[in-house]
């Protein structure tokens, strides 16, 4: 009997150790946040309230909010979380009003490093967007007047160089070895796109596109589309007066010149434009004017007359390459949780998912 008890105990111990091993394994593979087709939602948070956050929505639409806080013992990200970019196995989070770049493990969202640089020539005073150049190198736009692109070494997680570009650089896109940077003007006015050679880190040319270029995407034909918001007069808020037209322009990457130009909003109009996204494997462009979302085939010769979605004001717009869904990100105010409205490719509402405060974009894992 005693022997049997011994045996039983040994078996139990073995079982327990196997169980505990399994548990450790599952802890390591907890990094599902990099799952293909799933999305990371960027929630800006309220200016000065330190409540920006990141949400994760898997391919079935199951949401996990506050994943950074949960992975990092409750520590907060700060506020005005502007963007998230996955580069290799790392995630780059630009936290605008906290003047920092957070580097996380894209699988677990555990913090790897924080880049805060306050030197005069290269700094993180107004970080906006990141772009992966290689697995170990990234660009980050920074500045609200004089603009820079900071070159980040992802091996050391430091800024190694600073490239001067136009005012208030925003989103970037890459084709071949060329990086296209939207110079939005920041708190001023600019109407150019800077082109940087990604191997020499030098600006090779600057082209005129239209006033206030903010968003940029690359299509299936390797051309670059830029959303120029146009200048606006906010002095009679909440009525907006467009001082210059909002435009959607195409940069032909073979010649690096603008070869297509659509006017989204005429000067003098009270409409506003906020968003640009590309879906359908780079063949369909989605843009929003006021509370309407339109879809445009990249080969189309004119703008569509009717929107595919209307009636809701969205703060952000995204298109899933996984199932061609269109996501509208709604921030009803910046003190309470926002929502992701999911639509099918033809604009039928599927559902809405509660996320963090002030969602501005969803980034789909490739």
């Amino acid at each position, binding site marked *: 009997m005693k022997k049997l008890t011994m045996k039983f105990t040994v078996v139990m111990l073995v079982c327990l150790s196997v169980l505990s091993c399994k548990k450790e394994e599952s802890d390591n593979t907890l990094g599902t946040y990099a799952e293909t087709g799933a999305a990371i939602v960027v929630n800006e948070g*309220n200016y*000065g309230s330190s409540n920006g956050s990141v949400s994760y929505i898997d391919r079935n639409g199951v949401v996990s909010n506050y994943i950074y806080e949960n992975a990092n013992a*409750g520590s*907060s990200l700060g506020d005005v979380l502007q963007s998230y970019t996955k580069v290799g196995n790392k995630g780059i989070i630009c936290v605008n009003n906290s003047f920092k770049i957070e580097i996380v493990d894209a699988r677990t969202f555990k913090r790897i490093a924080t880049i805060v640089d306050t030197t005069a020539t290269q700094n993180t005073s107004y970080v906006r967007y990141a772009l992966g150049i290689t697995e170990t190198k990234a660009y980050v736009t920074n500045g609200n007047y004089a603009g820079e692109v900071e070159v980040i070494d992802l091996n050391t997680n430091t800024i190694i160089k600073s490239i001067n570009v136009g005012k208030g650089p925003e989103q970037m896109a890459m084709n071949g070895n060329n990086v296209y940077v939207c110079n939005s003007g920041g708190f001023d006015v600019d109407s150019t796109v800077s082109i940087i050679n990604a191997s020499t880190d030098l600006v090779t040319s600057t082209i005129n596109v239209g006033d206030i270029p903010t968003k940029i995407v690359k299509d299936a034909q390797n051309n670059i589309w830029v959303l120029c918001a146009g200048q606006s007069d906010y002095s009679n808020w909440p009525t907006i007066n467009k001082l210059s037209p909002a435009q959607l322009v195409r940069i032909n990457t073979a010649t690096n010149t603008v070869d297509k130009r659509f006017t989204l909003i005429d000067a003098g109009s009270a409409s506003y434009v906020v968003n640009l996204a590309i879906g359908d494997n780079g063949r369909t462009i989605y843009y929003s004017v006021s509370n309407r979302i339109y879809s445009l085939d990249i080969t189309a010769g004119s703008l569509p007359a009717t929107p595919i979605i209307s009636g809701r004001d969205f703060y952000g717009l995204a298109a899933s390459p996984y199932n061609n869904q269109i996501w509208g990100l709604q921030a009803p105010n910046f003190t309470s949780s926002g929502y992701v409205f999911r639509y099918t490719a033809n604009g039928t509402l599927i559902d809405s998912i509660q996320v963090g405060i002030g969602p501005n974009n969803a980034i789909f894992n490739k």
Partner: protein
Amino acid sequence: MIISNAVYYSIINNNIVWSPIVSGLYSPQNIKKTRHYGLESKIENTILWNKTNAFKFSINYNYNHSTIVNDETNRSLNGNFIRYKPQHTIKSYFIFEDKYFNIGLNYLYVGQRFTDDENIKVFQLKPYSLVDLFIAFKGNFKKANAEFGFKINNLFNTKYESLRSYAQPLRNYNITLLINYKSKLK
């Protein structure tokens, strides 16, 4: 010995609550209808064992349950706790008094608090306890009474927040000198 208990229950329409909006600024907000109930309990005693020596203590326990009953602007908030209201609070002091000095400590406990109307868990403030230690020397002179006090606030160097993301002082010291001149009324 004084033992007192108070139970309260109130429903307030158009309740105005001062709560932080942005950057640590407080603003009055009209959050429609709220309900508050709770218990205030207090035990106080002074034990004298001779003319000059005494032991005094007071323990206050407060249970509070404050919730939003109806918010017209956002009904999904109904039933949520009002922000920055702890459910449990303990305030107490223990003092030993002598002819020439007082020595004692304060103990404060504040329970967890939500910092927003949606009661988001990750933005909740953790409970904290604080202990302050103090000693005061007393002198009685012909023309004046004097008291020299030395106090250590936050003895255990506890990290805590009263307002989210605003760190509160760690251990700090307080020195006081109090002189009361006696004057004869003519």
